């Protein structure tokens, strides 16, 4: 308990975020018996993993005071690159996955370059990029995600989203790996130190020899990577890519990051909290769906619960 008190506020928020996710699960069980069943929990966590992956990238850029509004169409483009490159063939899965991820990295790096080198505000750069990718995808494919494919995601990718290993869905295992890797990257590597330094005080970071441009480009590239990765998994999940499939992930990924206790102005927060935030939001949506209420009530309740959670533990200290 004493340790809890002396914890940095950001670390404490990670615990709060996890507690919130658990509480929402319990709430779900209370209002809708069966909600806490193994299948139900598993299924919800798999859906949360998509949000969680996008939010990993979003978390990186938010940690340096940026934001990535291009995730919807980078995700979508990742999905479409996968289907159009793989043509649904298992043999082409590796190259298709690499192509999709490379696309995400390149687009993200361009975002980063726009922000770091040309000094374009992140909101504008990434919003414009979202439009640019959308236009390119629609224009280049003629609007069809893969008209020549007999099947869409290669079986390997579909298995990734649907199969289990030792009773744990593969998608969840993948997310778990990502959680571990991102947490390690942020906490025990040079890269992580530089990220927090940049997010806390960019001027001082540059004066301490941090390559701010390189880091910024790298972090946005990571965001592109994770958006594309989520796109790949979503194709596996649904079996196909569809236009607009990334749209729900914009605000949700930002919300997950903030509910997870990351400061939107940068420099403070942990991915573990973000992962909990992603779970919270997904559970919340599921509970609201399960409650069988009119759309407008659901919309209002969603907002009220998010604000309630934030009021409970997301308050800033007085300046």
């Amino acid at each position, binding site marked *: 308990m004493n340790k809890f008190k002396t914890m940095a506020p950001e670390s404490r928020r990670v615990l709060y975020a996890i507690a919130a996710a658990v509480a929402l699960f319990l709430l779900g069980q209370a209002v809708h018996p069966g909600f806490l069943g193994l299948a139900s929990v598993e299924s919800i966590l798999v859906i949360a993993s998509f949000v969680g992956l996008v939010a990993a990238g979003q978390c990186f850029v938010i940690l340096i005071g940026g934001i990535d*509004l291009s995730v919807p169409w980078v995700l979508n483009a990742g999905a479409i690159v996968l289907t159009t490159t793989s043509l649904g063939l298992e043999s082409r899965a590796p190259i298709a996955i690499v192509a999709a991820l490379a696309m995400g990295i390149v687009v993200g790096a361009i975002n980063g370059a*726009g922000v770091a080198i*040309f*000094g*374009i*505000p992140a*909101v*504008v*750069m990434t*919003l*414009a*990029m*979202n*439009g*640019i*990718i*959308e*236009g*390119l995808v*629609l*224009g280049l494919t*003629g*609007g069809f995600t893969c008209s020549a494919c007999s099947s869409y995601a290669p079986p390997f990718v579909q298995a990734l989203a649907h199969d289990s290993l030792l009773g744990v869905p593969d998608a969840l295992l993948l997310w778990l790996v990502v959680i571990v890797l991102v947490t390690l990257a942020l906490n025990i590597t040079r890269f992580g130190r530089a990220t927090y330094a940049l997010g806390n005080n960019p001027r001082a970071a540059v004066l301490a020899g941090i390559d701010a441009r390189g880091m910024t480009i790298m972090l946005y590239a990571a965001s592109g990577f994770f958006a594309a990765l989520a796109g790949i998994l979503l194709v596996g999940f649904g079996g196909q890519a569809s236009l607009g499939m990334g749209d729900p992930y914009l*605000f949700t990924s*930002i*919300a997950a990051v*903030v*509910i997870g206790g990351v*400061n*939107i*102005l940068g420099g403070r927060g942990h991915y573990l909290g973000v992962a909990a935030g992603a779970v919270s939001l997904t559970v919340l949506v599921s509970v609201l769906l399960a409650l069988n209420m009119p*759309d*407008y*009530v*659901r*919309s*209002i*309740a*969603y*907002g*009220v619960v*998010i*604000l309630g959670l*934030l*009021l409970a533990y*997301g*308050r*800033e*200290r*007085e*300046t």
Partner: protein
Amino acid sequence: MQPDTTADALPRGNRLGHLIAQNIGLILAGAILLIAIVAFILIYGIEQQRLPGNFELTSTVNSAVPLAFAAVGQCFVVLTKGIDLSVGGVVDLANAMAAVTMGKSLTSGLVWSVVILMVGAACGLVNGLLVALGRLQPIVVTLGTLSIYQGLAIRVLPEPGGAIPPSFTNFLVNPNAPYALIFIVLLALAWSAFRRSRAGVDLYAIGNDEAAARALGVNILRTKIIAYMLDGTLAAAAGLFLAASATAGDATTGNSYTLSSIVAVVLGGVSLFGGRGSAIGAIAGALITTLIVNILFFGHVNPLFQSFYEGVFLLIAVVVGGVIGGTIRRRPK
């Protein structure tokens, strides 16, 4: 006995240089707007073999008015170093209420307008209280309230419909003359009065450095609440204009104003880091955004590539603006 420091006075930068430094954002917005106007007239002229006339002016102005109001509202909040994602929700709510309540006469339209503006202010008040008193980050507060306001809007108007009195439409967005320019001018005048008020100065102070502003005795709570309430009121006004030009209501059409108001504010040279910029710039930004749509229309771009061009234009505008700005600022003093 006072050892004065005058003997060593350094040469000063000239007044023009200072003026440019202080208004750099506004100057850029003006430059981009000018470029956009010229580009529009050129493209229109080439495509249509004539110059844009009254109709084009009127429809452009009428399209720009709701966005101008939403953008100025957004500008208040951005100046405090905040951001408002609930603009779209408030526009929806106002739009929906207008369609349901106004009935047939101009009088009832105007009376209800006042009520709706007050509802907008109340929405802003909720945002402001959560941000200032609840000490929550504006982006998530307004993400939450966006969902709430949209829900309320759908509750008010479950499916598109209702009606706006034609007299009310003619009052706000007369389709035959660019008469809505008056509202833009009024908006700009109101802004410059606000800019010269206690609250206006305090708003900038908060955006510059909130801790310093607090130490200087600025009432942070009051000022932020004023900013968010004005924002909510103006977003509601945008909803009224939208309803008026549509002549009916739809609880979902306002959504696009969230992002487009932010884009307009940025194009208008207002810093997302707070404390710098002007609502006049935001108005210019709204006009630029509107003109880009026109340019793309008359440029007959492939609709599939439309968002590509929008994105590219946005980047070009911001980069060119930045380059011009950099050149002006680096000009030898």
